[in-house]
C-alpha cells in the first residue's frame, strides 16, 4: 500500500485534518447511492460530490439507484459488505430506507439520507436536503405573482405533471399548489398527470390534457423533464408562449434555463435545487459523523435552501448555471 500513502500525501493537509479518528494511511471510503444517473440534476450533484471528495482525498464509491427501491436495498447491502466508512443514501422510499439504515448502523457504518427522507419513526439518522414542500411553495408563490401580472383577468387553472407514487414528487407538487393558492385563492387544480419523470411521457399526457381542458393556463412539472415535456406539448399546439400560459419546472437544469431565457417561452420559472451546495452539505455531514462530531444516530434535518430562477434575471440564471451545473452555455 505504498501507492496509497503517496496518494494520501498529495492531500496531506486535508487528510490529516479530517482523519484524526481513522488510520492515517488509509483514505476514507464513502459510498453514495444516487436516485438515478439519468437525470441532469443528479449528474450535476454527482459531479460536485466527486470534485468535493477528491479535494478532500476521499475515495468515492458511486452507485446508480435506478429509481428502484429494491435495487437500492441491494446496493446498501453491497456497500455495507465493502465496509465503507460512511454512506450517503438518496433513497426512494422512507421505510425501506430506514431498514437499510438500521442494517448499516448495526455494522457500524454511519448513513445519512439525502433528498428523500427516511422514515424517522423507524430509523435515526441525519437528513440533508431541501424541504420539498416549502421549495414547491416558493415556486408556487412566484408563479402566482407572475400569473397575476400576466393574466390579471383570468382564472388560474393548474395542471400538475408528477411521478405518480413517488413521495418527494407528490410533496413538491402539493407545496406548489399550496404556495400558488396562498396568493390566488380561487386557483383550481384541474388535473394531476403521471409524467413518469420523462419528457416524452409528459408531452403525451399534456397533449391530451389540454385537448380535454384547453383553458388550463398554469403547468407545473415536478421535475425538469416533465416541465419541458409540458412545454413541448403546448408548443406543438401552437401555444407555449408567455401570452397563453405559464409553465413552471423544478430542477433548474440547462435545457430549462435555455427556455427561461427565451423571452417568448411560457416556461418562466424554475424551482432550482442547488446541486453544488447540496452535494457539499451531504459530504460535510457524513464527515462530521465519521469524525465523531455528530452522533451516528443524530436526527437533525439539514435543509439547504433552494432557489427560484425566473426569466426576469438572466444574469442570476447564468451565474447559477455556471456555479451549479458548471456549464458555460450562454443563455
Amino acid at each position, binding site marked *: 500500500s505504498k501507492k496509497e500513502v503517496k496518494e494520501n500525501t498529495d492531500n496531506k493537509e486535508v487528510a490529516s485534518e479530517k482523519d484524526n479518528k481513522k488510520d492515517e494511511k488509509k483514505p476514507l471510503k464513502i459510498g453514495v447511492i444516487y436516485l438515478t444517473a439519468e437525470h*441532469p440534476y443528479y449528474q450535476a450533484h454527482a459531479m460536485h460530490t466527486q470534485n468535493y471528495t477528491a479535494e478532500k482525498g476521499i475515495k468515492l464509491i458511486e452507485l446508480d439507484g435506478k429509481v428502484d427501491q429494491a435495487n437500492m436495498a441491494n446496493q446498501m447491502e453491497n456497500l455495507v459488505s465493502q465496509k465503507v466508512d460512511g454512506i450517503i443514501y438518496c433513497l426512494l422510499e422512507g421505510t425501506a430506507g430506514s431498514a437499510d439504515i438500521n442494517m448499516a448502523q448495526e455494522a457500524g457504518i454511519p448513513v445519512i439520507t439525502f433528498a428523500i427522507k427516511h422514515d424517522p419513526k423507524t430509523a435515526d439518522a441525519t437528513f440533508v436536503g431541501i424541504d420539498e414542500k416549502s421549495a414547491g411553495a416558493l415556486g408556487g408563490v412566484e408563479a402566482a405573482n407572475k400569473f397575476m401580472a400576466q393574466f390579471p383577468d383570468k382564472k388560474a387553472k393548474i395542471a400538475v405533471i408528477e411521478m405518480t407514487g413517488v413521495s418527494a414528487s407528490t410533496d413538491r407538487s402539493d407545496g406548489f399548489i399550496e404556495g400558488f393558492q396562498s396568493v390566488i385563492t380561487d386557483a383550481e387544480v384541474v388535473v394531476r398527470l*403521471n409524467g413518469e419523470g420523462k419528457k416524452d411521457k409528459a408531452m403525451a399526457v399534456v397533449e*391530451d390534457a389540454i385537448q380535454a381542458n384547453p383553458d388550463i393556463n398554469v403547468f407545473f412539472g415536478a421535475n425538469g423533464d416533465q416541465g419541458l415535456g409540458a412545454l413541448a406539448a403546448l*408548443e406543438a*399546439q401552437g401555444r407555449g408562449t408567455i401570452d397563453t400560459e405559464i409553465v413552471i419546472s423544478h430542477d433548474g437544469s440547462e*435545457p430549462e434555463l435555455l427556455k427561461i431565457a427565451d423571452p417568448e417561452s411560457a416556461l418562466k420559472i424554475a424551482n432550482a435545487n442547488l446541486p453544488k451546495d447540496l452535494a457539499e452539505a451531504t459530504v460535510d455531514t457524513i464527515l462530521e459523523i465519521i469524525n465523531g462530531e455528530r452522533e451516528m444516530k443524530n436526527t437533525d434535518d439539514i435543509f439547504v435552501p433552494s432557489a427560484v430562477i425566473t426569466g426576469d434575471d438572466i444574469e442570476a440564471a447564468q451565474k447559477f448555471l455556471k456555479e451549479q451545473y458548471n456549464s458555460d452555455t450562454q443563455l
Partner: protein
Amino acid sequence: MNSRLNSRYLQRFMIIGILLVLCVVFAVMSEEFFTYINIRNILRQQSMVAITAAGATFVMITTGLDISVGSTIALSGVVFAKLVQGGMPLLPACLIAILVGGIVGLINASMIVGAKINPVIATLGSMYAVRGIAYLVAGGTTIANGLPKNFNVLGRGYIGPVPIPVVIMILVYIVFHFVLSRTLLGKYTYAIGGNKETARLSGISVAKVMVLLYVITGLLTGLSGTIMASRLTSGNPQIGTGFEFDVIIAVFLGGVSTTGGEGTIVGTFIGAMIVGVLSNGLNLLGVDPFYQYIIKGIVLVLAVMLDMALKGNGLSLKSLNKRILAKS
C-alpha cells in the same frame, strides 16, 4: 375470386370494428374526443410507434422479435440532435440518424441470424448497450442547446393541414403494405414465418431476408427517433422506455400470431391506433392514472378476445372465408 385478399379484408374489418367501438365510446363520453385536432393529435402521437411497428410486423411474422427499439429511438434522436448541434444541416443529420438505427438493426441481425442467438436475448442485449451508448453520445444529459429553430419541423410541422409525422407514417404504411402484400420480400416473409425449412429448401435465402427485415426495422426506428427528437426539440437519452411494449402490442393486436406466418400491415396500423385511442381517451376523461393501468390492461385483452370471437376463436376467419369460397 381472390379470397386471400378477402380474408385479409375481413380481418381488417374486425379489428377496425374494435377500433370504432372504442372511438364511439369515447366520443359519447367526451365532447373533445371526436374533433379534428384531437384525431390529429392521436395520429401524431402514435406515428412513432406505428412507423416502428410497420417494420416489426415483418420481423414478427417471421417469429423474430426486436425489443431494442425503445433504446434505438433514444440513440437516433440523440445522434440527430448532436449532429445538428455540431452544425450539420438537418437533412444529412436526419439521414445519418436513421442510418444509425439501421446499424443497430444490422447488429441485431448479425447476432440473431449470424450467431443464431435467441432474438429476445440478442435484442435485450442491444437494448441495454444502445441505451448506454445513447447516454454517452449525449454526454449523459439532454441535448437542447444550440439547435436551430427549424429543428422541430419534422416533428411539429405540417403539410397542409396534416402533421409531417402523420404524412411520413402514411407513406411508410403505403410502401410497406405494398411490400408485404405484393412483392417477393413480402411473400418470403410469410414463407419464412410459416415454415423456415420449406422456405430454405425452396431456394429462399432465409438469412438474407431476415437480415434485411431487421435492418428495415432499425431504419424505421431510426426514423421514429428523429421524429421524436424533433417533436421534443431536443435529444433525450432517457426516452423511449416501454416503447417496445407499445410496438409489440400494436403488432399482436393487428393480427400477427406468435407462431408466425400471419399478419398484415393494415392490421398493425389499426393495432397502433387502438393503443393510441385508448390512452388518449382515458387521458381526455381525466381517469386517475391507477385506474388507467387497470382499464388499459382489460381493454387490451378484451380487444383481442373480441377480435377472436368475431373471427370465431381465431379459426373461423378461415371458415368464414371458406364459406364465402363455397358460395363463389
